[in-house]
């Protein structure tokens, strides 16, 4: 069954946008032209009937996100139940995570959140439940009852530190822990574990940088960080507590697999251009996914890498559309595209 899944992923990958499609989309001189080009790709069905002149940034994201979900549902639909659940949790759980974070932010300041503010994904929690939760405590109580133990544990740290990122970090730790738990049920999981390890390590690094930036002692958030971190955390974890923010890239360079991050991270921290940090980390993840795709092209890891490639395409399309909509030149948009 796994082989069939891999073959399906190979087949679906043929529907991805090609470099020449990206070049044409980047060269589009208007939103109308952008939609015309998109209508000749796999997205033709998704944009059919859309009024291009009225579509906003949020609407377009929902269009490409629905395509992403469609691809994930298609591939996970062919998988045996356990594997299918793992694939769906991996691909959609991260967007449920985004929803949870958005709900947390709104509830923390006592603001309302609407369903339109959330990604259209309901994996473990209904969107209505997020909207209707009365406050932060009620939301965390609900999360605790659904097994989000790290997020709930971080509430005390949040109260004393006043930084919501502690709970957000806990949520991510819950996400990766649940994936590792589910992975135990899958027989041939080696390549998949590698992808997960890299991703979890990158998120660990991201949160370390955030906590350093916020001057929050890492020892206070050690529980979720420990649950997330893998090779990178094992190798540089003991030193990162004492390190300055500017020293982190050099520390990361000590680990061969992550050495290529050093330059981008150094530049981002030196120039205080923090948008490049998120971009560099995502870039690294997708680069690794493509490496796995080339190496393990007949294993289950290929399917997970395929999911990451789907996500990458979604983000690329969204970036091009947003860039065009806000009037950025193509050269500037291209800087933020992930292409391998």
């Amino acid at each position, binding site marked *: 069954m796994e082989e069939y899944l891999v073959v399906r992923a190979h087949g679906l990958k043929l529907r991805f946008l090609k470099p020449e499609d990206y070049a044409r989309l980047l060269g589009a001189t208007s939103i109308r032209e952008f939609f015309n080009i998109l209508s000749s790709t796999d997205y033709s069905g998704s944009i059919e009937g859309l009024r291009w002149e009225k579509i*906003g*940034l949020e609407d377009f*994201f929902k269009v490409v996100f629905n395509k992403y979900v469609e691809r994930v549902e298609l591939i996970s639909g062919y998988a045996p139940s356990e594997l299918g659940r793992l694939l769906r949790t991996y691909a959609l759980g991260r967007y449920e995570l985004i929803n949870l974070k958005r709900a947390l932010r709104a509830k923390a*300041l006592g603001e309302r959140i609407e369903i339109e503010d959330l990604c259209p994904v309901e994996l473990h929690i209904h969107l209505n439940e997020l909207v209707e939760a009365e406050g932060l405590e009620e939301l965390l109580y609900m999360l605790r009852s659904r097994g989000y133990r790290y997020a709930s544990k971080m509430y005390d740290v949040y109260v004393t530190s006043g*930084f919501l990122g502690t709970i957000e970090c806990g949520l991510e730790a819950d996400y990766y822990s649940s994936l590792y738990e589910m992975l135990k049920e899958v027989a041939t999981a080696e390549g998949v574990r590698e992808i997960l390890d890299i991703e979890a390590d990158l998120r660990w690094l991201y949160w370390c940088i*955030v906590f350093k930036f916020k001057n929050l002692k890492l020892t206070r958030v050690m529980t979720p960080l420990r649950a997330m971190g893998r090779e990178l955390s094992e190798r540089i974890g003991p030193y990162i507590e004492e390190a300055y923010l500017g020293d982190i890239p050099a520390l990361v360079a000590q680990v061969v697999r992550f050495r290529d991050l050093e330059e981008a991270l150094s530049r981002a921290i030196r120039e*205080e251009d923090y948008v490049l940090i*998120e971009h560099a980390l995502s870039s690294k993840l997708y680069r690794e996914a493509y490496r796995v795709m080339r190496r393990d092209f007949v294993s289950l890891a290929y399917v997970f890498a395929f999911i990451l490639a789907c996500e990458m395409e979604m983000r690329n399309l969204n970036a091009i559309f947003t860039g065009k909509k806000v009037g950025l030149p193509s050269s500037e948009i291209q800087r933020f595209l992930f292409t391998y």
Partner: protein
Amino acid sequence: MSSLRYLPATIGTLVKLREQLQLVRRGKEILEMRRDQLIREIYQLLSEIRERERLEKEFLRIYDKVKELYMVMNADNIRSYARVVRRPELRLLYESLMGVKVPRVDILSEPDFSQVTDLAVHALAEELWKLLYRLIEITRKEAAVENLSKELAYINRVVNSLEKNIIPQLNESIHYVEEKVQEESLSEFVRIKKVRDVVQRRRG
């Protein structure tokens, strides 16, 4: 002022007119001093306002960064981060600068970005607030310059009116009354002499 022509040509009137001229001249001097002070103040503010051009360039740079941020993250995410920012509280008051009403903006509380968990959003939001704070200050100075300029234009009109209209008219009236008074005192002198001659002739 044309009514001055119909004043009784007496010494009393002349004294009053001279006092009036002195008062007007003193008033004009004071207004000129105030005008100079206003000009100095306006120049001082104008040199500070020149910073606006640089701030606007800075604003455009940050705006481009925000566009990049929208591209890397997405609009929903950025809106979500915006939710956790405590908005600043501002109070608009008016204060007196050299007797002219100028606006003053008090920052009662600064925005709080501490809950923004994304580094890029946090850094950009802080940068944008620092810039906005300076822009508010510049705008306040621009409004002050506008109000001071209105006052300056008014003082200029008054000084011009005193200089070109009131003072010459007062001078003219004084001159007229002086002539009249001199004429009268001369005729009085002649009359007295004639009366003296008549008295001396009768005695004689």
